């Protein structure tokens, strides 16, 4: 019997499809989006007038060139993540971009046209302070790098070091700024906080100290925050304590005292408690900075000041003004000022930097997105028009990491949602049915009111369906006549509906910046966005789907739990995942810090799943907490358990719910933190289905799987990181009883450990310090040849321990993340999706990670289709699901089942977002793309007619014979 099925399956497989994608399938089921992250430095390409590039260095350690017409990256260089690849400074000269990377670890020069590397040198150690170009005789030849205790000068052409000098008294003085005005000197400015400023002047030629002066400045604590060099070597500092500006001429031979100019003498007043800020501009590094500068003295109060003959002149007062910026084109420098217009829009204006006069026809309206944040930074590109007036384009970065590029008079060229470069968690939600389908569904939800009206209702809804179908057919016919390029399938929120096989879903993505996105999984277009503006930077997020779209007319409902890790304060955001709108349901206010949440399979009368929130007093809140829910909870309380893992104390504890919504501790496991720390705890996914309860052996008996839904895989790493003594431990704990079911220790191994826990197996990956390689290990649990209880599973009634099998393999690459495929019914075989640092996503069949793989092949193992054991797992190139679409820095993979049993939807996110479908057992439930409908139907018709004709002929012949 089983053999017969196997035979049929083999037959199907033989007619199966190819494993990798065909050339014409590229981009058909998958899409990729590239992001750069929040912009830290940006610079426009000013080489040619018609240039359309903007260069951006971002907080994600990316240096990229964006096309200003489309917003697409022209090229992108991704450095190491974390502080090692941090971009500290970005300087532009001509076609070269000089970048300091990793706290002064590297100095690089990029050729900006094609994004090629000119040169790269490793700098001496020391924490980076500042970098600047050094000009000589009207041309820029060097770049000066200032570190904590040294200053070095490098040639711009090849990066070679010209000289490196130690800074005097570097233990006490904090050197923070390096400045050059085009003559042969390099000025290094340092400060001893609340005491004095030190100015050291070096000669460009040989690095000799020409001059060293100290000036008293007891009010100053940080040079970079409150000082700027303006005009020809005048250090301008602002102080909030004395409400005055201080000036110091760096060129004077002897410095006596800083000149104090009180703001009162300029007729100005500072906002109380505001730290003033100075913005100056130096359009050409070989020349001194301009004498005009901005002074910010309030949150929305800016001043354009000019230093004229050592006198400060107030050119213009901008209030209210949110953001200001200088931009230079040719010889002209303009100041762009953004000021609020009304609740939903801001206006931008250009002012001449020299006179402070407003330039005509330069107003630009920037409409604020109601679901976005406030503008945070302006990047202005000015250019000269044909009539010699100044035109400009501007890139605005808002608080929610959105980049908007605007042209005059306010036309948005493109927007980039850079928040998506840092996705924290996501869910895939089924789309709602179409209106007509919903109508039909709704019919069954309503109460019956008489036979006749029900019949009428049914008839009318059927009529509507027919109408919709005809219009759909008409549309198909109409579209078929048009050339392909003209047919646009724009997806908007209005025409969203579930497709036949539920392959199109809504991806709800939560980003670290607190912006939520709803993305159509088929096209990748962003359908809604919502910015939560009070999200702390180090928040922990948990996204739960409380109600799916299956309960029409109740809208679907998602709940996002946001916890501030510092204060412990927790808030809930309840929203509709299809439209992104905040729900009218008011979430409970949570006065206590929440430790964990549990989504129960119980539903209230509105079909919303009950969310339990456990606070630090181990009290439980239910959301929604209607009477119905509380009653259900009281009934079920004795069978509701939850566990908490405190990594800092090494404690695992299990609790049981009491009927009064308090909890009792029922078990407790403590792993001493001196020896090992808990890294991850993985339970099973609640929406996982297992179709087969056992495995068929070669002798056709059954080895039953140990499918404990309450099983947890706890991974620990040793605190001792010495390579001889480090270890990785894995513990399988029953979350209800706290019983340790299995324990394994991998000696001479260390993390990071990636774990997947599903069905009756756990797969984990670690670094083996002994053999210096990555290894996979798989644990499988079996109940044995007999099931203890085939109808119910209770952790409290399990007298027999499961059999545990384990095997390990060598993997040729390190991995970034790992996840298992998930299908509707769990019939399809499972694959592991492994994200590699190289950007590939490997679909590794679970068949290769099977502890029953035999070392010696026997008849029985062959019968079982077990692959003989081989220590190495090979990476086959056709296993890459993303062919050449590398996903940079993949951090997570999300899998979701589709309506087709063979198909699993996959989303990989990191710096890029990639969506595709995988078919772990090939597309056994779908006809191939190139299925020959014509041939089959013509053969069928031909056979049918042949049968008819031959039947007729046979009849005639029979009759004739009868007459003879």
């Amino acid at each position: 019997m089983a053999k017969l099925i196997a035979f049929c399956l083999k037959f199907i497989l033989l007619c199966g499809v190819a494993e990798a994608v065909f050339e014409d399938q590229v981009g058909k089921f998958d899409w990729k989006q590239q992001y750069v992250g929040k912009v830290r430095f940006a610079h426009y390409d000013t080489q040619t007038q018609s240039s359309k590039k903007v260069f951006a260095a971002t907080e994600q350690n990316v240096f990229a060139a964006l096309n200003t017409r489309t917003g697409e990256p022209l090229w992108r260089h991704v450095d190491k993540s974390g502080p090692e690849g941090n971009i500290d400074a970005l300087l532009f000269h001509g076609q070269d971009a000089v970048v300091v990377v990793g706290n002064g670890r590297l100095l690089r020069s990029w050729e900006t046209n094609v994004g090629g590397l000119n040169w790269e040198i490793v700098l001496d150690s020391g924490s980076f302070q500042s970098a600047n170009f050094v000009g000589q005789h009207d041309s820029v030849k060097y770049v000066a790098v200032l570190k904590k205790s040294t200053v070095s000068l490098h040639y711009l052409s090849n990066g070679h070091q010209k000289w490196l000098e130690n800074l005097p008294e570097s233990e006490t003085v904090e050197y923070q700024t390096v400045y050059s005005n085009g003559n042969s000197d390099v000025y290094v400015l340092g400060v001893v906080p609340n005491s004095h400023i030190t100015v050291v002047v070096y000669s460009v030629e040989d690095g000799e100290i020409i001059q060293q002066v100290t000036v008293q400045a007891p009010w100053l604590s940080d040079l970079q925050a409150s000082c700027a060099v303006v005009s020809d070597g005048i250090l301008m500092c602002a102080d909030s304590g004395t409400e005055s500006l201080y000036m110091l001429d760096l060129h004077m031979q002897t410095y006596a005292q800083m000149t104090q100019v009180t703001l009162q003498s300029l007729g100005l007043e500072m906002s109380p408690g505001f730290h003033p800020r100075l913005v100056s501009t130096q359009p050409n590094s070989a020349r001194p900075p301009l004498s005009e500068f901005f002074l910010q003295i309030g949150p929305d109060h800016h001043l354009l000041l000019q230093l004229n003959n050592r006198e400060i002149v107030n050119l213009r007062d901008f209030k209210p003004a949110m953001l200001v910026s200088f931009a230079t084109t040719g010889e002209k420098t303009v100041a762009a000022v953004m000021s609020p217009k009304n609740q939903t829009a801001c206006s931008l204006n250009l002012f001449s930097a020299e006179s402070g006069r407003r330039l005509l026809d330069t107003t630009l309206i920037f409409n604020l997105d109601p679901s976005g944040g406030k503008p945070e930074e302006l990047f202005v590109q000015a250019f000269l028009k044909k009539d010699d007036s100044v035109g400009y384009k501007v890139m605005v970065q808002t608080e929610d990491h959105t980049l908007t590029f605007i042209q005059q008079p306010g036309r948005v060229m493109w927007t980039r949602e850079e928040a998506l470069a840092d996705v924290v968690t996501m869910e895939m939600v089924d789309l709602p049915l179409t209106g007509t389908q919903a109508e039909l569904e709704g019919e069954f939800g309503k109460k019956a009111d008489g036979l006749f009206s029900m019949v009428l209702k049914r008839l009318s809804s059927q009529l509507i369906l027919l109408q919709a179908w005809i219009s759909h057919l008409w549309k198909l016919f109409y579209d078929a006549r048009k050339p392909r390029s003209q047919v646009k399938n724009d997806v908007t929120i209005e025409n969203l509906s579930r497709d036949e096989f539920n392959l199109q879903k809504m991806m709800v993505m939560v980003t670290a910046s607190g912006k939520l996105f709803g993305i159509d999984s088929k096209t990748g277009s962003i359908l809604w966005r919502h910015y939560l503006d009070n999200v702390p930077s180090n928040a922990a997020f948990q996204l739960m789907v409380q109600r799916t779209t299956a309960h029409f007319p109740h809208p679907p409902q998602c709940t996002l739990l946001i916890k501030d890790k510092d204060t412990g304060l927790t808030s809930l955001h309840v929203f509709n995942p299809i439209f992104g709108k905040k729900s009218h349901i008011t979430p409970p206010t949570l006065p206590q810090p929440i430790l964990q949440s549990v989504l129960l399979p119980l539903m209230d009368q509105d079909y919303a799943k009950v969310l339990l929130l456990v606070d630090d007093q181990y009290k439980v809140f239910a959301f929604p907490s209607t009477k119905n829910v509380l009653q259900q909870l009281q009934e079920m309380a004795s069978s509701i358990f939850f566990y908490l893992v405190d990594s800092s104390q090494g404690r695992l504890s299990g609790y049981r719910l009491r009927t009064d919504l308090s909890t009792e501790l029922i078990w407790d496991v403590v792993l001493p933190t001196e020896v090992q720390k808990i890294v991850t705890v993985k339970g099973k996914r609640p929406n996982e289905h297992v179709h087969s309860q056992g495995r068929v052996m070669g002798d056709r008996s059954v080895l039953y799987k140990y499918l404990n839904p309450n099983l947890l895989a706890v991974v620990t790493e040793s605190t001792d990181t010495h390579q001889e003594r480090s270890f990785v431990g894995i513990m399988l704990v029953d979350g209800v009883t706290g019983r340790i079911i299995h324990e394994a220790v991998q000696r001479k191994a260390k993390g990071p450990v990636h774990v997947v826990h599903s069905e009756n197996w756990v797969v984990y990956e670690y670094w083996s310090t002994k053999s210096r390689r990555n290894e996979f290990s798989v644990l499988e649990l079996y109940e044995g040849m007999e099931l203890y209880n085939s109808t119910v599973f209770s952790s409290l009634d399990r007298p027999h321990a499961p059999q545990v099998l384990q095997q390990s393999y060598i993997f040729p690459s390190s991995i970034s993340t790992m996840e298992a495929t998930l299908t509707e019914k769990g019939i399809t075989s499972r694959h592991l999706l492994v994200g590699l640092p190289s950007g590939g996503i490997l679909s590794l069949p679970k068949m290769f990670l099977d502890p029953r793989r035999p070392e010696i092949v026997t008849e029985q193992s062959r019968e079982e289709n077990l692959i003989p054991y081989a220590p190495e797992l090979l990476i086959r190139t056709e296993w890459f699901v993303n062919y050449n679409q590398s996903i940079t820095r993949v951090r997570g993979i999300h899998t979701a089942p589709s309506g087709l049993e063979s198909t699993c939807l996959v989303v990989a996110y990191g710096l890029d977002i990639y969506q595709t479908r995988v078919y772990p057992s090939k597309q056994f439930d779908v006809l191939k793309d190139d299925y020959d409908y014509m041939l089959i139907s013509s053969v069928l018709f031909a056979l049918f007619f042949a049968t008819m004709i031959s039947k007729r002929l046979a009849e005639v012949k029979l009759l004739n014979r009868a007459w003879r």
Partner: protein
Amino acid sequence: MASPGGQGGGGGALSTRGGGVGARRMKWALELSMGNTRTRGDRQGGQGDVVYPIGYSEKPVPDTSIQETDKNLVEKRCWDVALGPLKQIPMNLFIMYMSGNTISIFPIMMVCMMAWRPIQALMSMSATFKVLESSSQQWLQGLVYLVGNLLGSALAIYKCQSMGLLPTHSSDWLAFIGPPQRMEIMGGGMVL
């Protein structure tokens, strides 16, 4: 012996119309004698216009009285029928041996044939009994026939068994075991 549409004319027979119209085609005619005037040939010359009485046949009638040897023949024939299925068994065994235990289209067809034939025979048991009615050992023969067919089907079942087509193992019923119901609800995780 009537011959419809026979040629008209000719005498000595009943006719609807008078014999006068020789050329006319008759609707029907009844000839009561074999030796017709119209059937020319050797008979005509020898016997002339002799009219035999009705029911007279020229050929000698065989002796149909039952003799002892015929009885034996019937018996033998009936035994042949009864032993038929048993005789097929060695042949089936040979085919079974030749087709092997692999599952592919031909062995499956063979097994189907082997299983179907005895079943068909058992279904038409009554018809076979009718054939065997004339035999004196009717019941014994019927029993032998039945046993032969049962053996044949047993052989087919054995073949199915050895090919692994019978759901006799626990693995064959694995697909019908549903997932067990969860008694406890559990959730939680790392402290946020």
